[in-house]
């Protein structure tokens, strides 16, 4: 069902945890639908210097969180804004069609965290002007 990459990131998730006094925090999903993803960012000079997550959800939700945090660490905000769920799916060597929504959650959680960062610092982040968390369906 899942690729080896997915299983690896699910069994040994990277970046689990919280960042105290994080520069940006994003939470998406809700317990009703069975997935909650919370992403914590540490940002210095427009660079994501650290990222952590906590996730309630299925194997692919956890693997997507793990992979997404890996992908953004060390990247600039600009680079992260243009990261789509596709990139997460590809980095995981694919997800079953019914589970692609988990990668969308990860993309959204990161963007919400960036918006949080922007709000706290009174910034405008290019590319996020029209961002809205998507209604996600399984």
């Amino acid at each position, binding site marked *: 069902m899942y690729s080896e990459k997915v299983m690896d990131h699910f069994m040994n998730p990277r970046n689990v945890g919280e960042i105290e006094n994080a520069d940006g925090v994003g939470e998406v999903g809700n317990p009703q639908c*069975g997935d*909650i993803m919370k992403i914590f960012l540490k940002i210095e000079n427009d660079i994501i210097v650290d990222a952590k997550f906590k*996730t309630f959800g*299925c194997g692919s939700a*956890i693997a997507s969180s793990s992979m997404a945090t890996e992908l953004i660490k060390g990247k600039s905000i600009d680079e992260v804004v243009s990261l789509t769920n596709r990139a997460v799916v590809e980095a995981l060597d694919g997800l079953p069609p019914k589970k692609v929504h988990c990668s969308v959650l990860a993309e959204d959680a990161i963007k919400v965290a960036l918006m949080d960062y922007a709000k706290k610092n009174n910034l405008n982040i290019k590319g996020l002007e029209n961002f809205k968390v998507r209604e996600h*369906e399984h």
Partner: protein
Amino acid sequence: MMGDDVLKRNVYLDYSATTPVKKEVFEAMVPYYTENFGNPSSIYRYGREAKSVVDKSREIIAGTINASTNEIYFCAGGSEADNWALKGIAEANANKGKHIITSKIEHHAVLHSCEYLETRGFEVTYLDVDEYGMVDLNDLKNAIRKDTILISIMYVNNEVGTVQPIAEIGKIAKENGIYFHTDAVQSYGHIKIDVEKLGVDLMTISSHKIYGPKGVGALYIRKGTKINQFIHGGAQERSMRAGTENLAAIAGFGKAASIADETLDEHRTRLIALRDKMINEISSRIGHVKLNGHPTERHPGNVNFCFEFIEGESLLLLLDNQGIAASSGSACTSGSLDPSHVLMALGLPHEIAHGSLRLTIGDFTTEEDVDYTVEKLVGIVEKLREISPLH
């Protein structure tokens, strides 16, 4: 392979999904593939031998539920039997009325047959259940109408293991002159069944839940019941169910039924002890858990818990990684949005229902399996809770 076995146990705890075929059962089937493969409907020797095999299994199964042989009809499994019972009774009795009563926690084979019948002009009342999964007999009485033709309530629920008061329902059905069907797929082989005492008119059973082969089941139909055929065609099963008889599988089903019947008491005693041990250990060693289903009126092998703050599929995957096979009512395992309709009907909040785990114990489960599973479960739940933002 060897290395794997040494490092990891193989613990199958999904007996309510399907069971392995017991060795004696398999041996009872072997002669009917390459050797005695005749068509039971033929008159030559090959056919007569085949017929006597089918007759013998029918006799055994009838005997185990106090039915007569001509009340047992073989078919392809529990789902077909449920479809047949529901649709066959509905169609044959539509002139008397078009109302059916069932419960919200039935197997999908019953529920989706009911939904189908709703598209054909029937009305269906889906009874609520209480927090333990029990149907309320007063609700049932209140739901009965002049045009009610069928009550279909499952004997034992497949997810949470709750045992319904079937004899009482049978009495109510009889008093009101309404046919009563029960899906006994999860009780047959686990509870002594007497169709006379229960007052059921139709009953579904399936072979692969009692250590018999897949692909065969039976519908008990009380003599005199007005029911249509479901699979039309040849004159098999006294013209009630067409299709060349599934000889080897029927032989295996018969053997499995006779073993289940003969060993029922020890089977129950053994399973209940393991089940209760597991329930107690999980309850005492893991916090924020909730036992689903009824505390006492319960399938002897069913353990079903919700673990707060975590999600079922993750749990299953990590258990599988330790060699433990289990199941979950989590939405994520079914590809639907909502957790299982059974957990929802028990009134569980979504976020808790998502974290359900069903462990079903069977004849090959050992005490070591239970210990191993609880041990692993403690760690896995802890790990997932650490990842969870809800914790």
